């Protein structure tokens, strides 16, 4: 099951920062890095990210567990490039049937994988250190997001883990009715679609009931909301965003000075 709970030590100095500031810092950092195609800047960025990890109170092992889809993606990138890369420059390292692995191909793959990690890790770190309720609060209070959207999404989010259990229940109920796909792939697809449909019907019904219950407690009734949990955006939060920009800029500068910089556009 997907886990949305924060996993960081909550007192860590950067984990404590305002959720909106953390999110903005991650976005700034990632966007700056997208500008280059070379492997050096992302490598520096990853080093910076890992060095900052203790300040977020996230242990490396925990991060690895959270980031495993990235590892899967990395393997996918390498395999795809090895099999299908059009440009096969450099020295031939391995030759097995259609797969010709050259140093050029490996370098390109390495660059792509590094970029992927450098750009995605800040987001992973932010969500690993942020409580969803705090994020919704901060979005409303500090980023002026509409409460209708932020609280609504938060409430809907709470129902997501139920979907896994529902899927299992519906599948078992269907087996009890004598419905199964066996080995026929077409029947499997049909069963999948009809189970998904039943899940959707149930989810919509639950969502509607939740919306009525929220209405009954005055949600989005046009009265200005007050806040029970105050989220503050202080100077340190601004510094976090600025720091992210400076560090990402520094990574790019090093890459330019080393002559490896390859702009995304142009």
């Amino acid at each position: 099951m997907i886990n949305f709970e924060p996993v960081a030590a909550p007192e860590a100095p950067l984990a404590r920062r305002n959720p909106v500031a953390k999110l903005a810092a991650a976005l700034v950092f990632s966007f700056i890095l997208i500008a280059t195609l070379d492997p050096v800047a992302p490598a520096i960025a990853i080093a910076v990210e890992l060095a900052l990890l203790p300040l977020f109170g996230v242990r490396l092992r925990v991060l690895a567990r959270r980031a495993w889809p990235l590892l899967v993606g990395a393997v996918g990138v390498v395999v795809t490039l090895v099999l299908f890369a059009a440009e096969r420059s450099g020295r031939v390292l391995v030759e097995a049937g259609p797969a010709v692995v050259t140093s050029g191909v490996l370098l390109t793959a390495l660059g792509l994988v590094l970029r992927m990690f450098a750009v995605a890790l800040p987001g992973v770190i932010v969500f690993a250190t942020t409580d969803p309720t705090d994020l919704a609060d901060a979005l409303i209070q500090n980023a002026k997001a509409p409460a209708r959207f932020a609280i609504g999404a938060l409430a809907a989010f709470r129902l997501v883990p139920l979907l896994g259990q529902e899927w299992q229940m519906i599948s078992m109920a269907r087996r009890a009715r004598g419905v199964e796909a066996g080995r026929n792939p077409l029947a499997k697809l049909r069963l999948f679609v009809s189970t998904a449909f039943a899940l959707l019907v149930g989810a919509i019904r639950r969502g509607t009931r939740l919306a009525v219950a929220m209405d009954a407690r005055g949600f989005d009734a046009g009265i200005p909301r007050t806040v029970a949990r105050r989220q503050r955006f202080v100077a340190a939060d601004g510094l976090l965003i600025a720091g992210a920009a400076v560090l990402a800029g520094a990574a790019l500068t090093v890459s330019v000075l080393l002559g490896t910089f390859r702009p995304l556009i142009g």
Partner: protein
Amino acid sequence: MGAVTLRGFGWRHAGRRAWAVRGVDLRVEAGERVLLLGPSGAGKSTLLAALAGLLPEDSGEQEGTVEIDGLDPRKGQERVGIVFQDPQTQLVMARSGDDVAFGLENRGTPAGEIWPRVDEALTRVGFPYPRDRPTAALSGGEQQRLALAGVLALRPGLLLLDEPTANLDPTGAALIRAAVAGALDADTTLILVEHRVAEALSLVDRVVVLEPGGGVRADGTPEAVFGTHGDALADEGVWVPGRPVPPRHATTPPGDVLLTADRLGLPPRLAAVDLAVRAGEALAVVGPNGAGKSTLALLLGGLLKPRTGRVAATTALAGGDERTPPHRWRAPALARRIGSVFQNPEHQFVTNTVFDELALGPRRTSQPEAAVRSTVDALLSRLRLTKLAAANPYTLSGGEARRLSVATALATAPRLLVCDEPTFGQDRRTWLELVDLFAELRDAGHGLVAVTHDPEFVAALADRRLTLERP
């Protein structure tokens, strides 16, 4: 605060031909405690929704007027609080205290007042945990208490409870009744919809009965109303107190063993169990929430793979297939031998009409179409569903959906029936029909396993009981 006046009130949902509720004249004074009764379909929930201001003007057609303290409820929403049946879909936030604060934030309560009022509401309902307790870690009864606290924190003059205990086990239901009894101020008006009348009577001093065709049938003290209308109400499905149900125990000793469980378990959900299920016997599985009763039902139904021990079918149940454990049987073979009825009937619906729903099992087990038709027709009339043959299963009422889910399991004539809370939240009429049906099946030589919290059901039907403890 919280006086209700209805004059010729009626409401018809957009797109429906029939009025959900009509011709209701009613005056409830501030501080009165009213139990609102009526047969299924009399419009009780619609009336509560109207009082809570939850029927937007464009969602249907209104007749007459409804007022709370002289105001349209849609404009006086802050005077009313409502608690619904399902705890899962009433809680909004991840932490308990935040959830109580949610309504206060919406109403614009000054920030400094929010937390004291949250604490006061939590104390009133006897909430036993600190404010940061995750709502997902609460039992159904505790979640419902929290939902009640969330409503009470808003200090409504009128409190509406729409079957707040229907989804709870007896312990959870008692928790909620105690919380309601302890939390109400003397001048808070209460309107409660609940068909388990005996349990609700301690909370109310007046009973109002809605007539399904429109209007109010009876109105007065519980003694007066049940004295005059008790029999008619009981026949229509209301659980009128003091009307015991006749027991239906087996008159002949049980027959062959159909299924055995040998140190069967699925830790951490279910600790190891030994049991044998016999033909012509009704076995009730009881025990507290979290003891793994539903898990046991799924294991016996051949729907889950055991982690420890095993389930074995005998030749009497499985024919030549008795060496294979039920969870490895092909689905059509399973449906012919063991029928499972799930706690939530909607999980089981696969098709678009009641007729197709009943025909599905027989068709899957390769019966000729003529035989399918006669099986389906017999089940439709046996379970009072004939008029609904063309209806979509998802549009049925709770009682109809339950009857259909039992009927679908019976359509393939399995020798063993495994039911999870088959009588949960049912009105008296459906309840009696289910007991009759199960008793008939048992007397015809079927085996029956029922996981249940319902003591009356156990008393009326069970020939043997198995009590599970928390693992």
